[in-house]
């Protein structure tokens, strides 16, 4: 399996190999993931695209160990990721963080920005208590938020600010990979572009890898080096983003491209 990977010599950060997962739904067996394999290198963004129910969120959840696959292996940061258990898993978990569409659902709604950002420092014992405030300030600065927000409630700030706080909390863990599940989909368009710029800048600084799960091809094109197109639990096409958009070979990639609303187009009347 090691040969033939799309990397130049260096070991990829993440290799998911032949992942399968079935669910029982309404008495029927539904194959959510059917022999799915992906790789991701440090500093790289892989866009995971597909319609609802194609399996992209299930794959993200397998990789983040929120659900267990029926079959397959995942290696991450040189380790057998699915084999990690108990305290070993807890120690390593900080290396892979997740940011969701609705950050309000990911935070205790009564928490302050300070406690939301410093929870990981406490949980993973990354800094002594006396340094939390200083570290939180530095993290806010990295996501381009003013330090004055530290003592505000997580429910009192705007949706765009909250998504930056979610990123700051992820960064507090000093991760190597962030899984972004529809992380900009709920934001207003002008905010969305700013968050995408921030993601690109953080990646440039830290060599972070992103698994960017989205159904929005235009957004994926803006940030992803490569894309994997999913349809009915399988990866049906993968390649450099520009090439896949310019010359899609699978029916699903063609359908996703055709469905993007265009600003300038001949419109049916």
């Amino acid at each position, binding site marked *: 399996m090691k040969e033939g990977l799309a*990397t130049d010599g260096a070991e990829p950060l993440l290799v998911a190999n032949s992942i399968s997962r079935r669910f029982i739904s309404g008495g029927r067996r539904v194959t959510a993931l059917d022999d799915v394999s992906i790789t991701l*290198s440090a*500093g*790289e*963004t892989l866009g995971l695209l597909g*319609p*609802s*129910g194609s399996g992209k969120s299930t794959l993200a959840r397998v990789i983040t160990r929120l659900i267990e696959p029926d079959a397959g292996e995942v290696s991450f940061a040189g380790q057998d990721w699915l084999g990690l258990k108990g305290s070993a898993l807890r120690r390593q978990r900080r290396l892979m963080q997740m940011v969701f569409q609705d950050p309000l659902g990911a935070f205790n709604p009564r928490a302050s920005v300070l406690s939301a950002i410093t929870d990981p420092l406490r949980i993973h014992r990354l800094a002594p208590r006396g340094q939390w405030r200083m570290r939180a300030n530095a993290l806010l600065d990295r996501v381009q938020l003013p330090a004055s927000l530290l003592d505000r409630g997580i429910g009192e700030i705007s*949706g765009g600010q909250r998504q930056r706080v979610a990123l700051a909390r992820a960064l507090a863990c000093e991760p190597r990979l962030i899984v972004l599940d529809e992380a900009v989909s709920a934001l*207003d*368009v*002008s905010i*969305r*572009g700013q968050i*995408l*710029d921030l993601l*690109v800048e953080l*990646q*440039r600084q830290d*060599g972070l890898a992103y698994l960017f799960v989205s*159904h*929005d*091809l*235009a*957004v994926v*094109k*803006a*940030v*992803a*080096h490569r894309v994997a197109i999913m349809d009915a639990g399988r990866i049906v096409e993968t390649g*450099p*983003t*520009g090439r896949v*958009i310019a010359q899609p070979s699978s029916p699903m990639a063609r*359908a*996703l*491209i*055709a*469905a*993007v*609303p*265009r*600003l*300038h*187009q001949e*419109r*049916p009347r």
Partner: protein
Amino acid sequence: MTALLHLTELSVTYPRQAEPALDAVSLDIAPGEKLAIIGESGSGKSTLALALAGLLPRGARLSGNITWPSLGRSARAGADFGMVFQDPGASLNPVLRIGEQVAEAAQRHLGLDWEKAGILALELLGRVRIPDPELAMRAYPHQFSGGQRQRIAIAAAIAARPRLLIADEATSALDVLVQAEIVALFRDLCAADGMALILITHDIALAASLADRIAVMHQARLVELAPALQLVETPQADYTRHLLGTHIDLTDTPRIGRTVP
């Protein structure tokens, strides 16, 4: 041509708010016209829809005028205009069969008996392209996908053949493939029935791909109203230019380099 709907200096202020959520908005909608109202969170676009539909919360202060010149009277919700929202689950009753829900709309607004209302409901489910309408009539909302639930909500909303359908972020929660199907359905329904459409959306490209005219809302005010192509090609308001500038399009240059660093 007599306008279908005429708004004059429409303002709305919510209880305990100093600033209006809608500030002196005036516009006309022609019969059969597809008008998109676009803006970001808090721009007033949904308040405008709620005001039109008479669904403002208790205590909201409304001033200005809403008239329906082509009706010559005030409009009745459900009969003269229908509405669909972002979450179709919220407009469908989870314990009523689909057939009953769509038939109820026909029965109430058209005064049909149950049998005729049921026949119409079956026809409507076919028009919104629900597969196997006979079977769907006896099923419950949870047995359908989000996109199919939105089609069912649309079937109920158009049951009384309204002159206007108001769609408030009706495709925002759907994936792009389903969104494109619903947009095509709106286009077909408007063409077939001469029904007017108010499409409320944050997506300027979606608006441009469907609407005849686009109204741009910003901070409670209508900042620009123009034919869709003209608005996209030659925007006049600074805010419209800002929205167009921040739109993320497939033709944009990526924000990253093409090679893995």
